[in-house]
């Protein structure tokens, strides 16, 4: 049963990966990657890593891919030629490079003297408990215990890295060149001293600007606000 599931899910993951690389439209590329990530989460489940599989689905296939979707929609996922400019030889070269890389990795993996190759991994027991006293393998309990005891420093560094990345992204994607039209707003001390509208008859008729007319006229252009202040003085 596990073998059948493994081959089905691995085929799905590989199909998703090939689709991500080869589809011309970035939008469909993102969708293929979502399919690939879901298949990968199933592979994690087959390896008994339940917490990482859940995090993969929620964080990766959920949040990160939605971010990608937003940027693809913003930039306008224009269809582009897949290969490098013009030359077919470059494209062929990169495919050959990928094939050579795979063969090299396969030799490196299968040629090592890892003891667990050919086995199903270390014995973790039927219910996931290797030894008495250990928390079950792959559960949030075990991950949380490890993160807060043995790997506390990497955990803190990762959180700091996330903070730096968030600040950096805001700095990078921020609008340059100051404020644009309609965004300028001056705050003077008079605004705090005097109320914007005092509720008099003149404001209701319209000869004296109240809050709404001042907002409509005063913030759009300086000339209009000058005109209304003249009428206000009269």
């Amino acid at each position, binding site marked *: 049963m596990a073998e059948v599931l493994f081959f089905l899910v691995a085929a799905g993951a590989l199909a998703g990966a090939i689709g991500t*690389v080869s589809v011309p439209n970035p939008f469909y590329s993102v969708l293929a*990657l979502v399919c690939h990530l879901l298949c990968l989460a199933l592979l994690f489940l087959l390896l008994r890593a339940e917490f990482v599989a859940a995090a993969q689905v929620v964080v990766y296939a959920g949040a990160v891919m939605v971010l990608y979707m937003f940027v693809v929609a913003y930039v306008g996922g224009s269809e582009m030629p897949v290969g490098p400019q013009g030359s077919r030889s470059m494209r062929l070269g990169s495919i050959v490079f990928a094939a050579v*890389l795979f063969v090299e990795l396969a030799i490196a993996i299968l040629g090592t003297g890892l003891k667990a190759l050919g086995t199903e991994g270390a014995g973790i027991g039927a219910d996931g408990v290797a030894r008495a006293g250990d928390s079950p393998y792959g559960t949030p309990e075990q991950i949380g215990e490890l993160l807060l005891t043995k790997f506390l420093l990497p955990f803190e560094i*990762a959180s700091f890295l996330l903070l730096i990345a968030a600040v950096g992204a805001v700095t990078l994607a921020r609008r340059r060149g100051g404020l644009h039209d309609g965004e300028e707003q001056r705050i003077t001390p008079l605004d705090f001293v005097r109320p914007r509208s005092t509720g008099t008859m003149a404001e209701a008729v319209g000869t004296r600007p109240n809050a709404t007319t001042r907002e409509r006229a005063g913030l759009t252009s300086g000339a209009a606000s000058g005109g209304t202040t003249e009428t206000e003085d009269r």
Partner: protein
Amino acid sequence: MAIEWYLVVSALIFSIGAGGVLTRRNPLVVLLCLELMLNAANLALIAFSRMHGNGDGQIFAVIVMVVAACEVCIGLGVIVAMYRRRLPIDVDELRELQG
């Protein structure tokens, strides 16, 4: 399933991602291919974690996920900044590092 099957699938996904990084010109798709490579590394890490029977490899995979999220954040910020400055969204056209 034996562990080496997972490692071979991971190597295959990594190679596909590397080929995609070399082949594609749209920086968005290049970032997606980087995600593929990181996920292949995650699969290998979790397979090794299963091999040893302790959770250290899973912690490593979670940290890799955090780093991948940071990379996506910065990469998409750069792409949005490129779009704002009317630069071509094409990695072959962007050869200079000056602002």
